[in-house]
């Protein structure tokens, strides 16, 4: 595979106001996010010739419907059933279609009433997984219906093998909560977390307590990707897509017969090769954080710390502002809000544009960032962005 050669850029990002109860539909929320992304880019809806969206169990609105009420008629719409790596994977699709000359400007969104509507994390319909998913009949009868349980099985084995402790999980949470205190739009702004409180919080499902789990909210996010040549016409500072790697592993979704490897382990080499950079070149990060442990596991996968040293890496404050890898600097999904991965990418774009320059939120002079998507242990999608 050739390198991405920075031929495409993210030129607009936008969101709606996140809340526990939106009182409205995913379509309304997506319209707000899309209009904000268009305004950010200085584009109009008629400039979009592609719109893409991902959803879980039909919790979003279709791209064609969004296009209808933006008042535009794009050439291409695409709706996928996806997980937390879909932001990166749809951006990869957009890049391919733009580089092929089929499209010029693509809007990608995720809209979900994740708190008041369908909840990814609080258990699906009892018969849904059995009927729809291969392997579902082998987990549901045992009460395993929540990602806390599925990923916890990986976490406990990994912690056993590598010496990662509950305190190490706590350092991930505390680092991100600290960022949320600087972000007025973070849902847990005003609710800082210390280690004593963290350790005193009972587990929902071992090894995870409520702080280890992302904050499920009603949210919509949108991202606009265009060609590097068209990016010059946009109002915003372009953030170029420098590298990309998708990857699957495991035979099944939700029945993981082995809990040792994750797809990210295999994505990393291709990712860095595609961008022509190394882990130590990365200055700011968006690490998928549906659960605290998922961050630790990916830090190992993507080469930021060696297996067995990841706990010490986060305990030393490396994920915080001023650390070697400031990560999830808006608070992440653990404390800003959960838009199924996309809100972390919005923040990475804003960091690389230096939108926070002159404030304590800006990762000073950052030029190169990584975003790691995790749809589960089985599917990864990661990208490298540069300004």
């Amino acid at each position, binding site marked *: 595979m050739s390198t991405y050669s920075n031929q495409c850029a993210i030129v607009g990002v936008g969101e709606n106001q996140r809340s526990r109860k939106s009182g409205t539909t995913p379509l309304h929320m997506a319209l707000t996010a899309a209009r904000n992304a268009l305004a950010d880019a200085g584009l109009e809806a008629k400039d979009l010739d592609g719109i893409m969206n991902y959803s879980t169990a039909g919790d979003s609105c279709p791209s064609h419907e969004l296009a209808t009420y933006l008042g535009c008629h794009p050439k291409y719409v695409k709706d996928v059933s996806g997980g937390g790596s879909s932001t990166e994977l749809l951006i990869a699709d957009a890049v391919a279609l733009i580089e092929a000359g089929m499209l010029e400007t693509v809007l990608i969104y995720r809209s979900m009433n994740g708190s008041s509507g369908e909840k990814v994390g609080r258990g699906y319909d009892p018969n849904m997984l059995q009927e729809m998913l291969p392997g579902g009949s082998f987990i549901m009868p045992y*009460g395993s219906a929540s990602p806390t349980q599925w990923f916890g099985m990986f976490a406990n084995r990994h912690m056993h093998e590598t010496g990662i402790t509950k305190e190490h999980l706590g350092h991930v949470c505390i680092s991100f909560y600290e960022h949320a205190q600087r972000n007025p739009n973070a849902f847990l702004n005003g609710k800082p977390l210390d280690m004593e409180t963290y350790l005193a919080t009972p587990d929902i499902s071992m090894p995870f307590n409520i702080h280890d789990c992302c904050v499920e909210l009603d949210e919509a996010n949108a991202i606009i990707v265009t060609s590097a040549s068209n990016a010059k016409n946009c109002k915003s500072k372009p953030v170029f897509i420098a590298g990309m790697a998708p990857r699957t592993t495991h035979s099944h979704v939700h029945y993981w017969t082995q809990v040792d490897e994750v797809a990210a382990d295999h994505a990393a080499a291709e990712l860095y090769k595609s961008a022509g950079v190394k882990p130590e070149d990365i200055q700011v990060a968006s690490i998928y954080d549906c659960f605290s442990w998922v961050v630790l596991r990916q830090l190992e996968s993507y080469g930021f710390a060696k297996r067995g040293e990841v706990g010490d890496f986060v305990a030393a404050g490396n994920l915080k502002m001023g650390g070697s890898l400031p990560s999830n600097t808006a608070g992440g999904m653990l404390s800003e809000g959960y838009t199924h991965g996309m809100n972390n990418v919005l923040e990475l774009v804003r960091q690389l544009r230096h939108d926070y320059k002159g404030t304590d939120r800006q990762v000073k002079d950052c030029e190169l960032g990584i975003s790691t998507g995790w749809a589960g242990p089985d599917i990864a999608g990661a990208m490298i962005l540069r300004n």
Partner: protein
Amino acid sequence: MTKQTAYEKPIPLKTQDNHEYWDAADQHELKLQKCSACSTFIHPPGPACPTCGSPETEWELLGSDITATVYSYIVSYRPFLPGFQHELPTVITVAALDADPDVKIMANIIECDPEDVEIGVPLKMTWVDITDDRALPQWVLARG
């Protein structure tokens, strides 16, 4: 008159691909699908071998004396499905079969103190009759 309590938890759904496993479970036996081409066990069962892609598969009866060790486990303090609210905390394990540790079978560890569960402890398979004609494979701690 005593009222029989209905089984509230999800009952394994038999399908074209998995019914041999559950039919054997109803008889308190473990039967696993195996690839006829590469001889790898296929669990959970499916329409072809995930290891080599061969559509030629067969079934192997392993019987009722099944032992394993805890490869990983979780302890859940909140019910995510109906029926589990009566049995908290719930211990769920991925257990490696002694007969072939590459085969991992997920089930609860029943009748145990969660404090006694750790990675590596030995298990024995048991079958719980959940309805008149269905039985569910489960693990218990293998003692002494």
